[in-house]
């Protein structure tokens, strides 16, 4: 066995040397059996940050597993991002505030328990209850009775939200606190997944081996090392797994996962390390995927600081935006895994969903002369200096900050006026940010929870919104967002949101830097690999040859 492997690798090495293409598939990778429908896909993974509860998972690594294990009322089409009914037969409303949800027949959890209205209501109440310390509990905050289970201070008064009522095993109603026309579209988010009874009766056991209603079941889970998921033959949904299962292997460094991919020990890497991007086309050819995701990176200004927030400074903010050569930075630093920012949403929304590549206009185009002029007209940089802040413990944050500063310095031409302020840990950065201590522009990344333009604007720029770290406040913007939320006609609502977004283009409370793509690479053994809008691979569609 070992000898055979040696010989094969030697042959591969020769092939590499001769043709400069990597040696991937056909190896004994993944520990899986043969090909075809029974083949096992091995894929890179990172340790989830929180225990794998649906309402407690807000990052990609945990999200990967939940996407295989759970199906909710709706599911975002991996291609179009449209929210299509999954478990929901229909979601009816007359007033955009009270909804009646009817479930489809025949859905079961993999332990044979049927999925009922109660499975949803119990799960949502659990997720909202402050005692369960679920990260995603604010997703339930629109439901009537949320304050009873999730008071701002003190003990909760109730265990259930009064806005959720089970009518019969197939039907339940939801009462919202206010009109929210696109609320059904948010139900594809994983926090809204149903949970089996076992989750509540044997919680620790469930966490060791989660049970859901998705196309896969957990075969084994070794925390910190990996998880083996297998196709669930009893799955009744239309999106059955086209492979025999997925082995997730924990890597502490994406570069290592990449090395395993090109040496044939791994089938799928869903995060190409920055330093390999220059070689990835050589190494993988058309087995490299680089597609837009629902992520935008911006530089947010501390408008709570009068230096930046006072009247007239919008010219300086626009000037800084125009001093950043986005094309060059996305090309040289990110190797086109970022797309220059042209509005405050994401191309993954599509034009229909509200993305508009002309919205920022000239303010997002590199024009050093105009930039210099605007900054001068606005009264110059505060104190003649600008300092960019970001955490540097992940990503290539240090590199792009340096590049942005160099771009600004070269455009203004007054020496090193732009400097970077790297912060060692994300926690420290987040604490400084939420204490409003930062006195210069800082990085804000935003990954949308669902493909809605509302999610890119309201939480970030609405007055007093939870993630409005720059304290931007504009009554016209707030008014347009309110109107858009009440608008039941989708295209009209989106037009209103875009009107609101135009105010951002004038005021520039944050500079759109670039849209972040999902990038992935895979071996020759597997095909039909795609990423969804959340840059999570669509595992059930992968086929093994």
């Amino acid at each position: 066995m070992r000898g055979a492997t040696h010989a094969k690798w030697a042959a591969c090495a020769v092939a590499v040397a001769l043709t400069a293409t990597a040696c991937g598939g056909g190896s004994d990778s993944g520990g899986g059996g043969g090909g075809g429908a029974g083949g096992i896909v091995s894929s890179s993974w990172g340790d989830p940050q929180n225990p794998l509860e649906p309402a407690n998972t807000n990052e990609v690594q945990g999200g990967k597993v939940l996407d295989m294990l759970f199906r909710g009322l709706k599911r975002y089409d991996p291609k179009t991002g449209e929210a299509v009914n999954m478990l929901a037969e229909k979601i009816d409303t007359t007033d955009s505030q009270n909804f009646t949800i009817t479930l489809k027949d025949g859905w079961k959890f993999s332990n044979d328990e049927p999925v009922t209205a109660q499975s949803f209501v119990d799960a949502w109440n659990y997720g909202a209850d402050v005692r369960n310390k679920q990260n995603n509990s604010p997703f339930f905050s629109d439901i009537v009775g949320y304050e009873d289970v999730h008071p701002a201070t003190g003990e909760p008064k109730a265990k259930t939200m009064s806005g959720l009522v089970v009518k019969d095993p197939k039907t339940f109603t939801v009462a919202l606190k206010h009109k929210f026309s696109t609320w059904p579209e948010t139900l594809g988010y994983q926090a809204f997944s149903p949970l089996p009874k076992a989750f509540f009766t044997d919680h620790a056991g469930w966490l060791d081996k989660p049970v859901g209603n998705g196309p896969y079941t957990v075969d084994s889970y070794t925390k910190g090392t990996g998880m083996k998921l297998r196709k669930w033959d009893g799955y009744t949904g239309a999106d059955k797994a086209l492979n025999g299962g997925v082995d997730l292997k924990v890597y502490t460094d994406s570069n290592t996962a990449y090395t395993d991919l090109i040496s044939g020990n791994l089938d799928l890497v869903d995060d190409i390390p920055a330093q390999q991007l220059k070689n990835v086309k050589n190494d993988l050819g058309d087995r490299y995927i680089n597609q837009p995701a629902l992520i935008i990176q911006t530089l947010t200004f501390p408008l709570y600081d009068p230096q930046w927030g006072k009247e007239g400074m919008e010219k300086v903010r626009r000037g800084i935006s125009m001093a950043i050569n986005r094309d060059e930075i996305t090309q040289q630093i990110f190797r086109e895994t970022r797309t220059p920012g042209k509005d405050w949403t994401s191309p993954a929304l599509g034009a229909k969903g509200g993305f508009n590549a002309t919205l920022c206009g000239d303010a997002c185009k590199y024009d050093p002369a105009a930039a210099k002029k605007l900054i001068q007209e606005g009264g110059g940089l505060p104190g003649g200096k600008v300092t960019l802040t970001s955490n540097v413990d992940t990503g290539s944050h240090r590199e792009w900050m340096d590049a942005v500063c160099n771009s600004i310095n070269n455009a203004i031409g007054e020496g090193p006026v732009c400097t970077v302020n790297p912060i060692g840990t994300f926690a420290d950065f987040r604490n400084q940010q939420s204490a409003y201590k930062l006195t210069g522009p800082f990085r804000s990344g935003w990954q949308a929870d669902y493909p809605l333009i509302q999610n890119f604007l309201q939480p970030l720029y609405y007055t007093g919104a939870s993630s409005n770290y720059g304290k931007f406040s504009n009554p016209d913007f707030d008014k347009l967002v309110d109107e858009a939320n009440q608008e039941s006609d989708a295209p009209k609502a989106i037009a209103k949101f875009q009107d609101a977004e135009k105010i951002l283009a004038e005021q520039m409370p944050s500079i759109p830097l670039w849209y972040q793509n999902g990038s992935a690479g895979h071996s020759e053994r597997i095909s039909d690999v795609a990423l969804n809008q959340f840059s999570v691979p669509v595992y059930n569609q992968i086929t093994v040859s």
Partner: protein
Amino acid sequence: MPDPERPEGPAMYDPVGPRPREAVSPTGQGGPMDLAVEGGESLERPPGPDTGPREKARSLWSDAWHQLRRNPVFVISSLMILFLVVIAIWPQLIASGDPLYCQLSKSQQGPEPGHPFGYDTQGCDVYTRTVYGARASITVGVCATLGAALLGSALGGLAGFFGSWGDAVLSRVADVFFGIPVVLGGLVFLSVVTSTTVWPVVGFIVLLGWPQIARIARGSVITAKQNDYVQAARALGAGNGRMLLRHVAPNAVAPVIVVATIALGTYIALEATLSFLGVGLRPPTVSWGIDISNAAPQIRNAPHMLLWPAGALSLTVLAFIMLGDAVRDALDPKLR
């Protein structure tokens, strides 16, 4: 603890004079077994007349200095260090560009006229940055090494020499310091500092670096004080201070020098680790450490980015290793 009441050694020689000169003449090489020990780096030692103790009153240390000046290894390494220091102070002497001027369009490009070492990821000129990086890197490396070596050998030497509870306390404190992870220490101590100078970084490296040198020094002193002439000196009533400085220290210093010269290189690299964490040297400071750590992940794409700053670091370490060797040789009468 080492036993202080060991029998006194035979007082065969004047124990308070310079260290015992054994019958090792400079022409003693080619002795049995050919354990030939030359001046190092295959440079011939000046042959000929006795360079031994002619002027009687010369102390050990001035003796060593006399010895040093004639050692070509010492001369060459001193010249190299002098060159590095001059570059560190006046980088513009050999580099006319601006290390902070970067054109992203030239990212990772190879050499071209006027830019002999090519460009780094940000499109800055590698040659200019390597020259300008000397100042911060050499300051950090030399000051941190000196600090850690002085503090470490003083504390370690005293602990090893006197033993008993002082040794216990110091060694246990060192153990706790060893336990502090660099990442944690750096984030805690350096993130509160806003200074853009190199001194916080130097101080932090000294703080983390002294325990290792202290342990090496302690071990050497424990062995050195067992030597007969030390015991003899003690028997004749030499004071502790005199014994430590005259008899023990010169015999114990070699391992400290070796560790310190190599540590010089690792400290320069450690500065880069701190920068990577966002707590090291801050821009606009340019350093080899930062450039090396930026170049490392790009090794497959642009090896030239690594070559030059790493080469400069090698040269610096080489100069100090040679200097250390020469100093050590000068302090060791057996090698004369």
